[in-house]
C-alpha cells in the first residue's frame, strides 16, 4: 500500500482540473479518457476536452507505450542509381518518442505494464536483447492512476494480486474526494508533475484514505485456489474435450487481446513503395489462426480451442512459471465485458482448477 506522507499529497478542485491538465499537456502528450460514441478511449487531450470519469474506459492505455502500429526503421534500397535495388541500402531507425502522461489510468492498467516490462526488457535473452522501442516510451510515460469507486461485474483485479486502489506501477494516484481530487506521488516522476499543486489538507488526506479503503472493501473476494491455476492448466493441456467445450462459443476475433492491458504480442511486416519502405510492428494476437500458421501450411494451433488454450495458458500458467508466479492478467475484465460472445476467462480458469482436481 501507499505510504501516506503528507508532503506528497496534493489537491486539485474540480474547477482547477482543466488548468492542471493544460499544464500537464504543455510538457508532454497528455492522454485522458474521452467519450466517443459508445466507447471511452484514451486520446491526446486538448483544451476544452471533457475527461470521462463516470464510465470505465473501453480500452486500456497500453497503446500509449505500445502503439497499435509503429515504425521500427525505414529502408532505402536506392543507394546506387545505376543498379537500383542492388548495391545500396540505407536503414534509418525510427525517431525517438516524446514524453507522455496518462491521466486517470485504471490501477489494473498500470499493473498491466508490469507484465510487459520483464519481457520487453529482454528476459528471453538474459537481458541482452532489449526492446528499445518499448523501453524508451515506457521510461518517458508517467501514469496518473485513479482509484476505482466501485467494481463492475466483470472486475477481478483482486484475483490476480491487484486492488482498485493499488499503486503498483503507478507514478501518482488520483482519488476523488469532496470537491475535487487528491493526488499523491508514488514515484519521483509522479512527484515532479504534481509539484505545482497546493498541498492537501489533513481532512482531504483522510477523505482520500477513506475512499481508498472503501474501494478495497467493495472489490470482489478472490477465490481460494487461484494459486492452483498454473498446474491445473498444465494438467489439462491435452484435454481436448475441456478446451472444445470452453471455446465453443468463442469467435476468435481477438478483441479480448487488443483491449487487454497485458497482451503484448505483435507482428512485424514490411511496407514498401518502389525502393523505399519501412519495417513496422503492429499488434497481433494468438486468437488469430494466422498467428502461428507456418509457410508450409502446418499450424500448431489450427483449432480455436488450441488458441484459446494458449491465451488462457499464457496468462495463468506459462507466464507465471517463468515470472515468479505473477499472472499475466491484471483482472480488468475487459476481455469479458467486451467479448461479443461473452467468453469469461474467470470461468475457464475456475473450471480448469475444478476439472484438474477431478482428474
Amino acid at each position, binding site marked *: 500500500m501507499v505510504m501516506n506522507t503528507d508532503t506528497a499529497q496534493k489537491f486539485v478542485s474540480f474547477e482547477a482540473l482543466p488548468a492542471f491538465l493544460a499544464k500537464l499537456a504543455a510538457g508532454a502528450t497528455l492522454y485522458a479518457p474521452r467519450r466517443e460514441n459508445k466507447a471511452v478511449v484514451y486520446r491526446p487531450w486538448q483544451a476544452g476536452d471533457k475527461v470521462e470519469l463516470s464510465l470505465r474506459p473501453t480500452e486500456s492505455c497500453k497503446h500509449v507505450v505500445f502503439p497499435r502500429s509503429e515504425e521500427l526503421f525505414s529502408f532505402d534500397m536506392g543507394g546506387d542509381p545505376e543498379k537500383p535495388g542492388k548495391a545500396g541500402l540505407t536503414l534509418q531507425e525510427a525517431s525517438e518518442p516524446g514524453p507522455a502522461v496518462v491521466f486517470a489510468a485504471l490501477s489494473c492498467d498500470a499493473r498491466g505494464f508490469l507484465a510487459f516490462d520483464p519481457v*520487453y526488457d529482454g528476459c*528471453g535473452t538474459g537481458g541482452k536483447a532489449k526492446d528499445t522501442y518499448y523501453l524508451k516510451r515506457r521510461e518517458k510515460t508517467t501514469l496518473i492512476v485513479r482509484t476505482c469507486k466501485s467494481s463492475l461485474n466483470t472486475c477481478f483485479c483482486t484475483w490476480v494480486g491487484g486492488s482498485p486502489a493499488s499503486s503498483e506501477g503507478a507514478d501518482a494516484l488520483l482519488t476523488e474526494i469532496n470537491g475535487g481530487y487528491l493526488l499523491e506521488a508514488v514515484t519521483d516522476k509522479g512527484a515532479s508533475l504534481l509539484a505545482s499543486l497546493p498541498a492537501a489538507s489533513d481532512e482531504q488526506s483522510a477523505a482520500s484514505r477513506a475512499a481508498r479503503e472503501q474501494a478495497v472493501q467493495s472489490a470482489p473476494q478472490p477465490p481460494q485456489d487461484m494459486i492452483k491455476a498454473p498446474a491445473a492448466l498444465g494438467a489439462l493441456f491435452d484435454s481436448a474435450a475441456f478446451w472444445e467445450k470452453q471455446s465453443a462459443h468463442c469467435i476468435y476475433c481477438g478483441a479480448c487481446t487488443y483491449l487487454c492491458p497485458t497482451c503484448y504480442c505483435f507482428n512485424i511486416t514490411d511496407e514498401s513503395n518502389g525502393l523505399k519502405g519501412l519495417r513496422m510492428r503492429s499488434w*497481433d494476437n494468438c486468437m488469430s489462426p494466422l498467428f502461428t500458421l507456418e509457410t508450409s501450411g502446418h499450424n500448431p494451433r489450427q483449432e480455436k480451442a488450441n488458441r484459446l488454450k494458449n491465451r488462457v495458458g499464457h496468462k495463468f500458467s506459462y507466464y507465471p512459471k517463468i515470472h515468479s508466479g505473477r499472472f499475466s492478467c491484471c483482472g480488468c475484465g475487459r476481455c469479458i465485458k467486451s467479448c461479443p460472445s461473452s467468453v469469461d476467462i474467470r470461468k475457464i480458469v475456475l473450471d480448469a482448477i475444478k476439472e484438474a482436481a477431478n482428474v
Partner: protein
Amino acid sequence: MSEQSGATPQRPAFTPGLSNPYLPMPAKVIEVITETPTIKTFRVVLQDEKLMKEFSFEPGQVGQLSMFGSGESTFVINSPPTRMEYLQFSVMRAGENTTALHSLEAGDIVGVRAPLGNYFPYDSMKGKDIVFIGGGIGMAPLRTLLLFMLDNRKDYGKISLLYGARSPQDMAFGAELPDWIARPDLDCVLTIDREAEGWPHRVGLIPNVLLEMNPSPKNCIAITCGPPIMIKFTLQALEKLKFSPEQIVTTLEKRMKCGIGICGRCNIGDKYVCVDGPVFTLAQLKEMPNEL
C-alpha cells in the same frame, strides 16, 4: 535437466550486431548456389568489415534474413563457426519472403539478424559417437554441426550421417556429397524414397534405412532434423534402437517474428523456440506440452 542427460542445449550467448535488436545488419550476397528446384543456398558477408570480423556464433544458431519490402524469415546458419569467410543460409522457396530471397543474385544486399537462439550442445557430445539423420532441407542445420565436428575431428568418436531426400534432384548440398562419401572419418549413407535411374546409393525411407544401419546407442548421440512426418518415425526408430530421450537431439521450426522471445508466437507452453530453442533433446520435448 538431470546429470545423465547426454546432451542438453544451453542458453545462448547473445551477441547482437547492434544495440537495436530489430535492426538487421546489411550483408552482401557473394554466391548463390542452386541446390534443388526449390532450394537455393546463399553465402553472405556482413557489409561492415568490423562486424564481420567480430561476428561469432555457435553451431545450430539461426539468423533472420531480410528482404526489405517482403519481410524476414528464420534460417539456420548452416556454415560452421570454424569457417568464417562467409555465413551460409539455405532457403526453400515456399512463401512471400522465400520467393523474394530466391531472386537474389551475387552482389545483392540482404539484412541479417544473427545469431539467434540456442545451439547444439557439442561440448557435452565430446568423446561420443554421433549419428546425424537429416531429411530434405532438414540437412541444413545438421550441416553446420557436421562440418564443425569434422573440423574438430579428434574430439568425437565415430561420426555417421544418414541423409535422405525424396529423389536425387531434391538432395541439397550435392557439391559436397562426393567429399562426404569419400572421407574415411565419416560414414555417409544417402537414401532416396523411390528408385531412380543411375542412383548408386540406398533406396528407402529414412527410418527404415536407419534401422538397417542399426547404430549402437552405446555412448552415442543421435541428431535429427527433417519434415514432421520423418521426425515422427525417426524418433520411433531411434527408440526401437534403444536410444534414450536424452541421447536424441533435434532442432525445431516455428513461425517466428522477433527472434528474441518477445513477440509471442513461437511458444510451446512456457518455452519460446526462438530463445529456448531451436535445439531441444527429446527428453526436453517430452516435458513440454504437445504442441508441435
